[in-house]
């Protein structure tokens, strides 16, 4: 997919998401948005502000607190001609809708042979005083489900381009936004046809000594770590998969095969996680080239505390990525 956009604007991630929604709703009247507080209040974090005024109460609709019905609204509406976007306020609440996501949405094509256009937007991670039931990262659980795409943008521009692509996609897409990134600014291409391909990783920084695969909030931290280590002459490659499922394994494998070292960085806890999956990929496909055991940089296997400083101390920072890279370098 090519980009015809020339002009860019510095936008926060939430603004990139808002712009994607506005543009796609302008472009295609089948696109609707449903969720708790998405309409009149404009979203609990303001992500959807202005949309209801612009597109009306039928297309941007506040729902009761009914997570199963929320995703069901998307499945049913997607099955009979709309291209719904469903907002689940926090990723933690998606657990209540797990049946609709896993057993219904993800199996619609398998049972029927027909497309199901559906985007489920949700928000993960620490960053607010929200605690152990409003801050979790479950991306790996959903990546384990055939029939579902899982997208996790790490900046405002990607959020816009990937969300637009997700809305135009003919399969259910779980689109995971990150609370800790909502207000982070980036130059965002303007223009309706700015789309980013789903299923394609982006190499954020080229390097030769070690491959860092980072997702969500850890992408910028990995880039910061790479910058720090560059002062010491260490050359770090940083890959942002952007789509977690289906994963662009080729880009990742090619990089690991070249550098011989792997660090995977994520906000989620390590056991049975996305990082574990990438390490498996390295073991299965790059063992002869590996010079050191792969390293997972992740949150400790404990719950997310409520006070912000405590919660932030739990998530891995750039320093943790630096330490992880050093371990990967010393491991040989």
């Amino acid at each position, binding site marked *: 997919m090519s980009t015809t956009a020339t002009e860019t604007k510095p936008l926060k991630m939430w603004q990139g998401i808002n712009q994607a929604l506005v543009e796609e709703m302008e472009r295609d009247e089948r696109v*609707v948005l*449903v969720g708790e507080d998405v309409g009149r209040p404009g979203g609990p974090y303001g992500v959807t502000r202005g949309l209801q005024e612009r597109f009306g109460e*039928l*297309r941007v*609709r506040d*729902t*009761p607190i*009914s997570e*199963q*019905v*929320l*995703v*069901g*609204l*998307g*499945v*049913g*509406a*997607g*099955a*009979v*001609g*709309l291209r*719904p976007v469903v907002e689940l306020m926090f990723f933690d609440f998606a657990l209540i809708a797990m*049946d*609709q996501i896993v*057993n*219904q949405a993800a*199996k*619609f*094509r*398998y*049972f*029927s*042979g*027909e*497309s199901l256009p559906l985007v489920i937007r949700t928000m993960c991670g620490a960053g607010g005083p929200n605690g152990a039931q409003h801050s979790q990262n479950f991306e790996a659980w959903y990546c384990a489900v*055939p*029939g579902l*795409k899982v997208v996790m943008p790490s900046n405002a521009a990607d959020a816009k381009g990937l969300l637009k692509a997700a809305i135009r*996609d*003919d*399969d259910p897409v779980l689109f995971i936004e990150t609370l800790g990134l909502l207000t982070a600014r980036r130059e965002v291409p303007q223009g309706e046809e700015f789309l980013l391909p789903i299923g394609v990783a982006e190499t954020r920084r080229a390097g030769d000594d070690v491959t860092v695969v980072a997702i969500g909030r850890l992408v910028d931290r990995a880039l910061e770590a790479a910058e720090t280590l560059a002062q010491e002459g260490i050359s770090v490659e940083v890959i942002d998969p952007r789509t977690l499922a*289906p994963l662009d394994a080729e880009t990742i494998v090619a990089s690991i095969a070249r550098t011989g070292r792997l660090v995977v960085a994520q906000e989620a806890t390590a056991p049975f996680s996305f990082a574990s999956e990438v390490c498996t990929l390295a073991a299965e496909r790059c063992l002869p080239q590996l010079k050191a055991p792969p390293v997972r940089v992740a949150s400790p296997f404990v719950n997310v505390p409520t006070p912000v400083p405590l919660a932030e101390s739990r998530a891995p920072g750039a320093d943790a990525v630096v330490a992880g890279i050093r371990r990967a370098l010393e491991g040989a």
Partner: protein
Amino acid sequence: MPEVHVPVARGDGALRTAAGRYRLMRLSRRFEETVHDQHGEGQVPGPLHLSIGQEAVAVGACAELRRSDAVLSTHRGHHHCLAKGARADRLMAELLGRESGYSRGRGGSMHVAIPSIGLLGTNGIVGAGLPIATGAAYAMQAQDRDDVTVAFFGEGATGTGAFGEAVNIAALWALPLVFVCENNQYVELTPQDVHVAGEIWRRGESHGIPGVRVDGNDVEAVREAAATAIARARGGGGPTLIEAVTYRWFGHYAGDRAAYRDSREVDSWRARDPLVAARAALDDAEADALDAEVEREIADALAFAQRSAVTGPGALAIDHLKETA
């Protein structure tokens, strides 16, 4: 290509006459008796929940539906599928695990979805069709269509959270949705009094949803209640909850001997066969002719399924994402 038999009871209007309704009930009965036999012979590689005894509910509720209306079905859904216009031959092929089945023979009875005729799915998850029904109804409303969605569910599903969520939003949004509870009085292996508090037809009362209880063995009673509900929904009047009281003649699944039921109770319900009542509305010669037609259709459907290739591992990866279609 095997020859394609196009049955009569299909598409818009097929159930508008008493003859059409009887014919479809008979088709459903004979379809299930046939797959039950096939199951006994080891030819059905999956579970089977028979709706024999409950045909009048599906046929009555679907009588006034158009192709563009939507239906959400359940684990016990062959009669819903046929009443909404599924082909007996492809449904049979699905149950027999054949490539020509609606889900390529990979889904079986609980995993049939035929969006082209508005059948949005039987379901292996009790209650899960109800949230999807709200979505279909919402889309119809948002697109300003005068189509409706009918959601079938068993009395057991009233215990799920999905039911409570769906009833609430249907009322809040005045969705063009008809809830049809098919109360066959048993929930798996236990009677409904283990599961259901209060009266199901009144569950929407405080939401302002009209409720009605009908004799689910009387196809005309079901049709009339559904017609009222459907007209109301098409006109923007919102949802209705219909409880159709009926009985399943067989066990929960093919193979369940239903030893938890009193045989006199079963006999008393068998004596109220919905097909006998529906047949009585026709003259004998006409009914005989329909019966013969149904026999041919079922024989053809079985032959079609048996001629189709058994689904093999080559079909496993198909239709997960568009890229793997």
